[in-house]
């Protein structure tokens, strides 16, 4: 397994948010995370990325647990994972190419990263190739702010590729996009998994996207996993358990 996560636990101020999450993602696989708001999907991805420190649990990449690594090795292992955000988090004033180059910053000496004018030529070429892989080579020199939401998210994917990540974690990558752009980005993520062998885990807000694009879907309910099944085996009952608290008026009142 390219990415495997065991016994992930996390609490904020004494409130348990993740109570032991175990999953793995193989190379060439797109896995979807489903669950109601606050069920811990983002926290799971952030713990795996190391943005949030988990209370306990182990994260392994190709069988090597990250907590056995130190210094440069740990950094290199972490850089095999890239994150895609709902809010995209590109710099709108910079060109698509410059934003993609930023994925390679860890390989560029600090003095050469002070301005895009100083980025090494081979990095720029690689960034252009990455833009080509997401179908946006022709927009390389456009400012990101001028691109549509769907195009921006594809630039963000290209940035992850330029980081040379082989594990891509996406937190609601299509929630801010119109339906057509959402389909395009999901198709791109599936393509990267299936043809390029990336391991992709994506939090999705719409179950139907998960069922159509993901190889496997994982359900999270209040910090625990309720299912981890091939998407073809997910039924309406599975989904009902996940979103039921949201639908029942009396439950919502008592939770408030």
């Amino acid at each position: 397994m390219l990415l495997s996560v065991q016994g992930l636990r996390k609490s904020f101020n004494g409130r348990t948010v993740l109570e032991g999450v175990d999953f793995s993602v193989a190379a060439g696989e797109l896995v979807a995370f489903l669950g109601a708001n606050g069920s811990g999907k983002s926290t799971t991805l952030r713990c795996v990325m190391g943005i949030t420190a988990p209370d306990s649990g182990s994260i392994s990449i190709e069988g090597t647990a990250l907590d056995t690594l130190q210094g440069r090795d740990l950094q290199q292992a972490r850089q095999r994972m890239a994150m895609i955000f709902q809010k995209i988090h590109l710099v709108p004033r910079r060109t698509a190419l410059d934003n993609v180059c930023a994925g390679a910053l860890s390989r560029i000496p600090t003095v050469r990263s002070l301005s895009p004018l100083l980025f090494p030529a081979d990095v720029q070429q690689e960034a252009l190739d990455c833009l080509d892989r997401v179908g946006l080579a022709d927009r390389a020199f456009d400012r990101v702010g001028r691109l549509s939401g769907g195009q921006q998210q594809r630039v963000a994917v290209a940035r992850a590729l330029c980081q040379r990540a082989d594990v891509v974690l996406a937190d609601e990558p299509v929630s801010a996009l119109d339906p057509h752009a959402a389909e395009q980005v999901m198709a791109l993520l599936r393509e990267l998994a299936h043809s390029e062998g990336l391991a992709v885990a994506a939090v999705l807000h719409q179950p139907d996207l998960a069922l159509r694009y993901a190889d496997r879907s994982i359900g999270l309910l209040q910090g625990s996993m309720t299912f981890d099944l091939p998407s073809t085996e997910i039924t309406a009952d599975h989904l009902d358990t996940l979103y039921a608290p949201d639908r029942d008026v009396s439950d919502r009142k008592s939770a408030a």
Partner: protein
Amino acid sequence: MTPHTLTPAVARRSPSAQTRVALVRPKKPLRWITTAAVAAAVVGLHAVAIEGTDFKPELLVDGWKGMAAFIGDAFPPDLSWEKTLRPGLEATLVTLWIGLLGTTLSVPFALLLAALAAENTSPHRLVYQAARAILSFFRAVPDIVFALIFVTAVGLGPFAGVLALICHNTGVMGKLWAESMEEIDSGPQEALRTAGANRVQQVANATLPMVVPQFVGLLLYRFDVNVRSSLGLGLVGAGGIGLLINQSIKSFQFDSMLTHILIVLVLIIVVDQFSAWIRRRLAA
């Protein structure tokens, strides 16, 4: 929330319903006491302030004759080219140059200190505190005081004015820039951090490019302010049109003084329009 879940509740709230929710505003008995206390405090502070500043409008009434004579002497403004107009225009240019250099030459210092004094870009808590302290110092010392200090060091003239503005403006602009960096969306910076970029790389490739419009806007605003401050610096001997205004008052040439003031007025309007124009282009 889906419309589906709302339907029963909406049905229950039809106008024909028997029981309606009573409108009862929660009473807040403490509110008017607080209002009264604040009002009393404000009035009290003003009473003390009026006492402390010898604020006596009757003096103004008594002194109206002096003022009228002064204004009478100033009209008509002295428009003689050799004696007043040319020196005035030349000195105004010097004032403009002082404001320009005082602004641009403080940019490197303000930029460095701002990056160290913004919570999201500072490398360490101690560096943050130190940078904040330095900025506060340069901001707290008025440019006039810096000018007086530099006049003793480098002599009377515009150079002292430029140095004074660099010091004071570094403090003010550094603070304003640090604040605009703290207000910027931290997402892009976090994205680069997860991609393995170091702190300097994050700041250079996410934070700074994000705040460019705010930075340029504040820079123009400070240029505007600094041109006006350099007038005041001239009054204490640091060159420019301020110096001429001071001299014409001291030699009772109020008609020349008025000419100089009118030139200044034009300069300030031009600078103000120029920076407004740039800011509009930037926003577009």
